[in-house]
């Protein structure tokens, strides 16, 4: 099993994702430079948080054209796993691997704090070790995390169980104040139809140790690792 963490010149959560996979999940992991195109060695790709190419135009707007993203498209089309976190989620939406867009936060500020998210679907490669309805404590850190999609898309996401995480309060209730950025339907994370591409604004890699205030994020990485391990066995 091998993980790859994509490094755009402006990625800044690349080391954090690498650290979690190598130290906490205990799996081999490489950094993948944005000009690379050969992803054949990998079972899962993480697109980490940061500011890909500066993101002065729009988060992820340039990254979708990068050499590595052309390969990520093919990689995903072959059913292999892609996890986009924060800027990674923005890039996946810009690249068309996930529907919808991430707009400027409701109050226009960058927001960094721990929030609660509810697991909406535990039947995915990324969440099978979590319970449906479980409330996780994960940090967010973004200025453009306000998820938007049209009615038809929202309907489709709901129907197909592709909304994976929603912002909620500590008891799992969806309220206006528990939605930190104004996301439509409190959406914090969604997957593609094939369930092999997950994009989420919260940072599970920042929540893998009690020392940092939460270890709720580790189940996401562990779910993915066990999925890959099982596939290798069968």
């Amino acid at each position: 099993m091998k993980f790859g963490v994509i490094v755009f010149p402006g990625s800044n959560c690349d080391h954090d994702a690498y650290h979690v996979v190598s130290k906490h999940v205990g799996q081999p992991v490489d950094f993948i430079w944005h000009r690379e195109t050969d992803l054949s060695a990998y079972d899962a790709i993480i697109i980490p948080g940061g500011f890909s190419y500066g993101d002065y135009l729009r988060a992820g707007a340039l990254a979708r054209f990068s050499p590595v993203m052309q390969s990520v498209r093919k990689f995903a089309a072959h059913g292999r796993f892609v996890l986009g976190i924060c800027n990674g989620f923005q890039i996946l939406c810009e690249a068309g691997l996930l529907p919808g867009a991430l707009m400027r936060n409701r109050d226009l500020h960058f927001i960094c704090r721990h929030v609660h998210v509810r697991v909406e679907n535990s039947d995915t490669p990324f969440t099978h070790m979590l319970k449906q309805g479980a409330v996780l404590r994960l940090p967010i850190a973004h200025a453009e995390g306000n998820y938007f999609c049209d009615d038809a898309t929202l309907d489709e996401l709901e129907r197909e169980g592709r909304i994976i995480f929603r912002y909620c309060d500590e008891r799992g209730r969806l309220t206006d104040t528990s939605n930190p950025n104004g996301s439509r339907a409190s959406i914090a994370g969604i997957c593609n139809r094939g369930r092999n591409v997950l994009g989420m604004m919260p940072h599970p890699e920042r929540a893998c140790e009690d020392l940092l205030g939460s270890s709720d994020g580790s189940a996401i990485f562990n779910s993915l690792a066990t999925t890959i391990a099982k596939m290798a066995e069968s």
Partner: protein
Amino acid sequence: MNVTPEVIAAHNLTDEEYERIRSLLGREPNLVELGIFSVMWSEHCSYKSSRVHLKRLPTAGERVIVPPGENAGVVDVGDGWCAAFKIESHNHPSFIEPFQGAATGVGGILRDVFTMGARPVAAMNSLRFGRLDHPEYGRRNRALFAGVVAGIAHYGNCFGVATVGGEVFFDDVYNFNPLVNAFALGLVRRDQIFFARASGIGNPVLYVGAKTGRDGIHGATMASAEFDEEALSKRPTVQVGDPFLEKLLLEACLEAMRSGAVAGIQDMGAAGLTSSSCEMAARAGTGIELDLDLVPQREQGMNAYEIMLSESQERMLLVAHKGREREVIDIFRKWELDAVVIGRVTDTKRLVVRHHGEVVADIPVTALTDDAPRYQRPLRPPAGRDEDRMARAQESFAETATRAEGAQSIEEVIRSEEAAGIDYNEALEKLLASPNIASKEWVFEQYDHMVRTNTVVLPGADAAVIRIKETRRALAMSLDGNGRLCAADPREGAKLVVAEAARNVVCVGARPIAITNCLNFASPERPEVMWSFSEVIDGMAEACRELRTPVVSGNVSFYNETEGRGIWPTPVVGMVGLIEDVRRVIQPGFKKAGEIIALLGETRDDLALSEYAATVLKIDTQRLVQQGHVPKIDWERERAVQETVLRAAEEGLLRAAHDCAEGGLAIALAEMCFSSLNREAIGAEIDLGGTLQTAARLFAETPSRIVVSFDEAVLGRMEEIAAELRCPLTMIGRVGGQLLRISVDGQEVIARDVRELEKIWRSAIKDAMRMETLVGAAE
């Protein structure tokens, strides 16, 4: 253009300084040379007014690896790791253009840290503005505050450094001169530290990073003069920051350093190419030749004067080992950055600059650095000030009253107000709503304070804590200033600032090891300002010796003055502490019902410069600083309190610890009750004995006090430690319930639901800022 008296004056050079230039050169300078001298001899670059005083600060210590003089100071933090850190002001640019001014301040301090070879892991900032609700200037103050915070967030978040806190303070003395001081800390292996030295005759000098434009020409000179009503016309001297480019520069520089091809490196900060080249040569005792035709430029037709003085951001000057320039260039190319050989190191000890084939400047390096003017500027205490005002504090109130033109003394005003009746619940709520005390989460939630997953103690505690992943160790850091105390008594005030900074890192379980300082003052040409500067240095020097925390880096910012109105003397201290075992970290919040609450240290009648006097009694703060008496620090007591906490923390005895600062004991207790990550709000029941008036027991700002909580089972051991270290330990109550109840000699004076108090505390700044949008980012 010829060098005329008008041109000399426009360069902020005095006639004497011009004469000195002539004699050092042995001829008249040309215009390019005049520009070079003017920036290098500016207050900002030369420290000409402060240098004679700065020498009195202690800079040596067993952990000090790099003392002041390099881009950042470096201390040994164990296991082969070192911390490089520094604080720097960006006050002037931030007033002119808050978003970019603050952003480029962050950029500059980050470069100072990574030129040492250290990867920045934490940033903090110390901010001061006029009051947010000032009837006339409130709107502008809010816009400045919003713009500065957005600028810091923009730069730090994109760069990928955790901005883990700092301080924010509001007083009208900063209406026209907000203070923006940026701190950064990086980690470097002890054997991989780099220096800003142009060593190795014949070595190539490379220009790396962004292209040069016409922005920021004479920024250093601007920062070395007071403002007048035309300040805003200086906007073109503020540069625009590009944090993405800086991120590339960081990665490329660190990669180049690891390659072994780099001999020395310096940031092109204030005075750009000029200061980086001559300072690197001066430190190495060499010379430098530059060919400006080779400098990457993003504007056409720039002349030598403009290229030498530009302060375009995100640039570095790098000296490579001879024959290895190709390696450096290839690394920078990988990161899509310019890296160009523009000159070489010589043995002439001269800075020689060529442009279009002609020599446009030829100056002995030392003339720009070591031979820059040093001024022993006149010092004079302000009029009306007693020689021994501290002694006065002990005298009878009757006598002080006669001194102040028959008016009541501050102490008398405070007592008579209390005699007339104070609702202490209301007073507590007013204090919690004061922006100086209220939660700063509106600020730090805009900063990514968790990136790189090292932040063990989040912003909002006494100090932030960053772990060193490869070890069991962690670093605590705190920024502290107190203009009120330093205005009332600069010497005693400076001591208290250092002591508080140390206490803050102690409260999270860290041993203070070293400081960096940012000395913000008004015009040094006024003798009373220079006197206060000298006093602050002496106070700070004493404090650093007493606490064994040498100064390893710093910055002086003079001329924080607009139309004759200067700021208070505002030295800001960045204290760094070391935690040997990160699992021993302590946080300020009470953990569970039944814990014993104790006060280490003793409360005295120190209300005269308090937030209580300013906010609850609404006494004008200018009057407070003119008449109030500054508490005098007792170093034995201070050390005893700090050592008791450290010893108890090492033994794992403490549940919580929190410094008593603005708002005094009652505020410290309320903050300890409030909720934090993974912990609900919880009440406390307190009874305060003693002989002081109620307001003093609750709100006095006596230094050398820390509130702690611990389980009953360890009470005996706590008492032993305190007794052994001669630290007063008074049990004042217990954790429990939903209310904060405080009694004075058995009589309840405060009883409030802590969740309601917390709401006031959390929402005060948010509510004040609700109407402000992202000023800078929206533009």
